[in-house]
């Protein structure tokens, strides 16, 4: 059940020039893949809360990982330890962890944010997990050691080759799928997600993707965040997602 709560900032670190990790104290629950709406100001400009995925969660502690994308995240980054922020959540559908197969988790850039909590949960469930971490360049591959520590095997790729293999993470994924089937979880830029989904379909693997949309309410009330679904209707990213089975949202 989502709720509105004031959470105190207990850690707020720059993990890269572009990316911040924010840890908040407060009684809120969360599943991997869910998100929260964060109040970045008490002014009406900017007006809306900002949706951020649950990067990590443990009882009494919520961690977010966010990229400085514009005004809202910039305002958030100015908040200091000891200040508090209004959080609405947990929101949306997370990643289903049920599958019997080993897991492959694919991150593109800041799309890695929600996958940390996912990896921790898969590891806790004793799953064998391969983590593909791709980005445009080295600077975007944040928290590498932390991610690596949570995966059975760990593969990096950058478009410019500045770190890990040069090229698209999806090429490496293909190679992996040739050998074994797996349940695939992905978050990142939409072109990457579509490519991952296509591969998954080709190899009869379950594939879950976490999507983004401009949001207002975050709770399903405004119908502002819809995307077309493959059955010809619109689905709300905030409550029907943000995690969808690939076939729900991507046509072959």
């Amino acid at each position, binding site marked *: 059940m989502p709720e509105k709560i004031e959470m105190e900032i207990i850690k707020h670190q720059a993990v890269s020039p572009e990316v911040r990790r924010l840890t908040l104290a407060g009684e809120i629950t969360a599943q991997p893949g869910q998100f929260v709406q964060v109040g970045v100001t008490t002014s009406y400009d*900017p007006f809306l809360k900002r949706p951020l995925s649950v990067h990590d969660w443990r009882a009494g502690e919520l961690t977010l990982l966010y990229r400085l994308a514009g005004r809202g995240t910039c305002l958030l980054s100015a908040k200091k330890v000891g200040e508090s922020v209004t959080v609405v959540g947990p929101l949306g559908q997370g990643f289903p962890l049920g599958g019997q197969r080993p897991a492959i988790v694919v991150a593109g850039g800041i799309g890695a944010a929600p996958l940390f909590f996912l990896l921790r949960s898969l590891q806790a469930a004793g799953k064998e997990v391969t983590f593909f971490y791709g980005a445009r360049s080295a600077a975007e591959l944040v928290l590498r050691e932390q991610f690596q520590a949570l995966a059975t095997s760990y593969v990096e790729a950058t478009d410019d080759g500045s770190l890990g293999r040069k090229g698209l993470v999806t090429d490496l994924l293909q190679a992996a799928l040739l050998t074994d089937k797996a349940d695939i979880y992905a978050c990142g830029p939409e072109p990457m997600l579509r490519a991952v989904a296509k591969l998954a379909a080709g190899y009869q693997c379950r594939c879950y993707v976490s999507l983004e949309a*401009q949001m207002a309410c975050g709770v399903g009330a405004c119908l502002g965040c819809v995307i077309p679904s493959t059955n010809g209707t619109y689905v709300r990213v905030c409550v029907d997602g943000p995690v969808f089975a690939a076939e729900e949202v991507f046509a072959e």
Partner: protein
Amino acid sequence: MTPDMTVKLGQLTLRNPVMPASGCFGYGEEYAPFYDLAKLGAIVVKGTTVEPRLGNAPVRIVETSAGLLNAIGLQNPGVAAAKEKIRQLAPYKTPVIVNVAGHSSNDYQHVIEALEEEPTVAAYEVNISCPNVQAGGLAFGTDPAVVAALIKRLRRVTEKTLIVKLSPNVTDIVAIAQAAESAGADALSLINTLVGMAIDAEKRRPVLANLTGGLSGPAVKPVALRMVWQVTEAVRIPVIGMGGISCTADAIEFLLAGATAVAIGAANFINPTVCPEVAAGIAEYLKRHHFQSVQEIVGLAKLTSQE
């Protein structure tokens, strides 16, 4: 001594003057996790049409300075499915107001007829901001004669409280309000959204797939307050004021301007508990200033401004 918070809209008595604005509260269920919906004066549900509507393609919303533009396109499951959702609200024992939309007077009439037998439905809010296909897509709400004809017709098919929701995108909202009143409306609600647009300077195209959208939020409050003031000078039926209300002080301003009740739209998005907070805030305000009932402050700014 707790002040009397009840207000009347037609035959309808609300336990307090605060309700969510249509389209900002789905069919109620979305905000039920945050508080007991029985704290609301009424529950106003999404604009409902005869047939299901897919709505507009995304992008549907964009943030603006102190507000947002929306172009949802009246996505709704159609009146039959909506009825089922509305029934779920019965346990809250709170009047449900159904926002009615259509593209012809037939459309409006059919929605009302389909809900007439449903006891959970306490009132209709007729959204006349919709494009009128018979009138080449010009909004119903822009012509007093068209509004009068539509409301006369709907008045004949329902005994329930009939509220007409006015568009602010007109030269003379008072004329529209008077037309609705004389045609038999029990109450008016205003304002709907102001037609606006946003353009992405880098992508060099409009942000919304629909090109234009409806502006709401604190940005529009001054325009809404002015229209509520003008309309309540000119009609005798009660007015539900809305447009940018985001805190108790905002709501008080609308009551002082002459609104009998208030609706809160976009502010629900930034504060899911804003409605009960404002209802409680109004009660505190009345206590602090020693008013016995909320009705005492309705239109009070008109008197003081004549001093």
